[in-house]
């Protein structure tokens, strides 16, 4: 037998796939159960029971983190490890790294499930985990990346299938986003302040938050879609060409769309415009991908009736299409004015998570379990029932949220008397109107969870008594032949297409951002580069094509270029914002730094997750201004680490709540919200009246904030304590005069101090040049 015909057998590491799969099913059930419970808490405030650990605002991050990182995270780790081994014909590079990845990830999830209900949070959505856990996530992500790329290095298939491209984009982009958005300075072992504040923090947070959707909930699942849908349909993807366009378009464009979460706010207008336009442009690749997936099922429709896998995939792709149509729609400023801060966004998110992620997960699991345990699925009927009950659950959920959100938006924005007064000035009236719809959400959630539990039972019965098997594959014993020499890391960058693209981008940035001479030079330079690129392409176009073909067999250069593509979008948005929008450049109004007691109150506000129901951002919209007061200026939150603009209003905006009510009102409201606001759905916070304010932590916190640029005068710990005691006694005296009695060292006093501070800023006189310009 010749050397070339000798074969060797590779046994895949499917054990790790089984572990991640089961973890996803279990954590998914827990995450959804918490979701159903917190949804019920919004309808029945009594379910909060006055217990801090199960209060809505502390449990909500448990739900979001569980479904994003535990359900979907474990699901795509399982899928990526299963498909990568088969697509590159190599066993996972390291058993140790695989196990470290699995157990490390589960430990992080468990730690989050413990710390978040304790109120240990960074106060940023989907980025709530405290800094030691952030470091752990980064380390484990690096372990995953090393294991993945090491496997690619050992691959026996030179070409990289499009699914692998999506995995690479996921790994590099999530790493970048996570690190930048979690840059913080610790004040203790469990607390830190993010290095960005105010508008900078808002932009970085939603650059991360939006792309958590893009690169955690979308790109890895699309990679799985490009593997599992063709496998389930037993035919190749409808159009590989379309998948190529889908990948590059999505990777280049998605990263820019983050600012659409901050439309009509104090975010600079150019960023809002960028976010809106790039979001609209996302329609094309998203629908291209969705249609590519659906058309792959052509010819397999007859099997849809009996095959739950195909059913789940078809429905998941349909929900992907719906969610990616709705997302850009909500990113249009005028539609966002109606939908933002309402349940519409919750409906939109859940059509993606329940429909796209949940159903893709279920389809993939139903495909994998019989193969990984070498046993027929216990019950196809139960799987089909799961599909239908889950589908009805989703429709209940998103239908209710659409109706609720649009009702909420219209009522909150409605005016009467020729637009001079609000038609529904009482926020609670609006809330009471949508409560029945919110109840339908709970029912939908229960149905969806029931389906998921059926799947768990089905798997339990399938796996019980079965023998796990690992897939194997025969490959030639010698090294695979490459069609061409791979590209090195340096030549990945120093080649005509990349050099011309980078130069054009640099000149266009100079044109966009620069003043007079720089701007004109940028425009001229960009024009020259385009002409040169065209000329080069005309004379040596084949080189461009050859380079691209080589790229598809070169994992590291591919990764570097993908990183450049995603990093460019973030850099162009974030760098000018960080440089320009600092306190020293702020006009009109600027925030007064919090007193030590107010700062302690603010940290209590963040600990309790108040930002999850109350925004601190009055938008540049007439109904917002009529309801809450003058619109929020960029400088009014410039020292806020983290920013607290919020993303959902289950209660009214608090940007100008300071001074609106007296201290006694806040005292009563936090003890029993219905005493001051009949019909309120807010939970009571009785522990604030017994727990003492953590004054000892303030020196460290103030020190860190000073390092971050907040203009605190130097204070000794004794001075801080003195300042706290003085303000506490003033509030206690005011409360006593209003017939309320409290001891000064309790947390409620600090929280009242913070709430009464909100909206109190310094008005900056117009600069001399601005006055001259106005004249």
């Amino acid at each position, binding site marked *: 037998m010749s050397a070339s015909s000798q074969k060797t057998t590779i046994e*895949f590491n499917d054990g790790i796939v089984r572990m991640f799969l089961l973890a996803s099913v279990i954590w998914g059930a827990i995450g959804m159960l918490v979701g159903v419970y917190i949804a019920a808490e919004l309808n029945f405030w009594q379910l909060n029971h006055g217990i801090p650990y199960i209060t809505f605002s502390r449990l909500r991050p448990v739900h979001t983190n569980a479904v994003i990182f535990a359900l979907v995270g474990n699901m795509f780790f399982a899928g990526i490890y299963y*498909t990568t081994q*088969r*697509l590159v014909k190599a066993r996972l590079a390291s058993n140790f790294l695989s196990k470290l990845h699995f157990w490390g990830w589960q430990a992080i999830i468990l730690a989050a499930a413990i710390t978040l209900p304790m109120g240990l949070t960074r106060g940023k959505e989907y980025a709530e985990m405290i800094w030691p856990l952030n470091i752990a996530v980064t380390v484990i992500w690096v372990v995953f990346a090393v294991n993945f790329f090491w496997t690619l290095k050992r691959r026996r*298939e030179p*070409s990289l*299938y499009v699914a692998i491209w999506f995995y690479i984009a996921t790994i590099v982009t999530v790493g970048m986003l996570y690190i930048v958005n979690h840059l913080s300075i610790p004040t203790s072992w469990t607390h830190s302040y993010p290095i960005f504040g105010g508008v900078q923090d808002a932009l970085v947070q939603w650059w991360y938050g939006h792309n958590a959707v893009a690169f955690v909930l979308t790109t890895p699942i699309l990679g799985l879609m*490009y593997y599992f849908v*063709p*496998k389930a349909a037993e035919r*190749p*993807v409808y159009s*590989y*060409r*379309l998948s*190529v*366009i889908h990948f*590059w*378009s999505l990777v*280049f*464009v998605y990263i820019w769309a983050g600012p659409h979460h901050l439309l009509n706010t104090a975010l*600079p*207008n*150019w960023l809002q*415009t*960028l976010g*809106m*336009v*790039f979001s609209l*442009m996302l329609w*094309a*690749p998203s629908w291209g991908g969705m249609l590519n997936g659906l058309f792959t099922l052509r010819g397999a429709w007859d099997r849809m009736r009996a*095959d*739950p*896998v195909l059913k789940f995939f078809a429905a998941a792709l349909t929900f992907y299409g719906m969610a990616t149509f709705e997302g850009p729609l909500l990113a249009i400023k005028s539609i966002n004015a109606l939908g933002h801060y309402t349940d519409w966004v919750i409906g939109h998110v859940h059509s993606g998570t329940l429909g796209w992620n949940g159903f893709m997960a279920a389809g993939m699991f139903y495909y994998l379990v*019989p*193969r990984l345990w*070498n*046993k*027929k*699925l216990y019950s*196809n009927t139960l799987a089909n029932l799961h599909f239908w009950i889950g589908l009805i659950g989703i429709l209940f959920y998103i239908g209710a949220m659409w109706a609720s959100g649009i009702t909420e938006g219209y009522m909150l924005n409605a005016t009467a008397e020729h637009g001079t007064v609000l038609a529904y000035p009482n926020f609670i009236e609006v809330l009471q109107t949508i409560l029945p719809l919110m109840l339908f959400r709970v029912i939908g959630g229960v149905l969806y969870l029931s389906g998921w539990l059926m799947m768990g039972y089905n798997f339990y019965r399938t796996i019980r008594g079965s023998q796990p*098997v690992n*897939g*194997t*594959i*025969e490959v030639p014993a010698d090294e695979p032949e490459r069609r061409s020499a791979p590209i090195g890391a340096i030549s990945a960058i120093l080649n005509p297409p990349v050099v011309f693209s980078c130069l054009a981008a640099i000149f*266009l940035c100079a044109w*966009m*951002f*620069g*003043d007079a001479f*720089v*701007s004109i030079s940028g425009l001229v330079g960009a024009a020259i580069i385009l002409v040169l690129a065209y000329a080069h392409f005309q004379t040596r176009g084949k080189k461009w*094509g050859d380079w*691209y*073909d080589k790229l598809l067999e070169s994992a590291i250069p591919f990764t570097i270029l993908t990183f450049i593509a995603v990093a460019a979008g973030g850099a162009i948005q974030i760098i*000018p914002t960080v*440089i*320009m929008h600092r306190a020293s450049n702020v006009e009109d109004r600027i925030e007064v730094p919090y007193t030590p007691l107010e700062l302690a109150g603010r940290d209590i506000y963040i600990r309790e997750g108040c930002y999850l129901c109350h925004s601190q951002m009055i938008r540049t919209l007439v109904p917002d201004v009529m309801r809450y007061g003058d619109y929020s200026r960029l400088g009014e939150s410039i020292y806020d680490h983290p920013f607290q603009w919020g993303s959902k209003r289950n209660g009214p905006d608090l940007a100008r709540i300071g001074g609106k009510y007296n201290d006694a009102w806040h005292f009563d409201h936090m003890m029993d919200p219905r005493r001051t606001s009949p019909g309120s759905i807010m939970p009571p916070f009785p522990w604030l009246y017994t727990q003492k304010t953590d004054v000892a932590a303030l020196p460290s916190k103030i020190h860190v904030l000073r390092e971050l640029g907040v203009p605190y005068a130097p204070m000794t710990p004794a001075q801080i304590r003195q300042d706290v005691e003085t303000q506490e006694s003033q509030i206690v005296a005011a409360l006593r005069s209003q017939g309320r009695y409290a001891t000064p060292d309790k947390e409620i006093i600090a929280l009242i101090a913070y709430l009464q501070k909100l909206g109190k800023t310094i008005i900056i006189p117009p600069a001399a040049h601005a006055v001259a310009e106005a004249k």
Partner: protein
Amino acid sequence: MFQRIVMDHSVVFVGTLAFVVSASIYVAFFWRAMRMKSKQLEQFENLPFVDERPSERHDA
């Protein structure tokens, strides 16, 4: 620096530029995808089907 983008009267070209940039990316990769040869496409799209031993597959 950055004065132009901060001034609202300049913001209109940001939207146009965003459109042009994303449209250029779409066109470039559309062109690249169209240039892919049939043999190359066939090889890529069949990668998921170069699979493990049939005897160890268990269809649901």
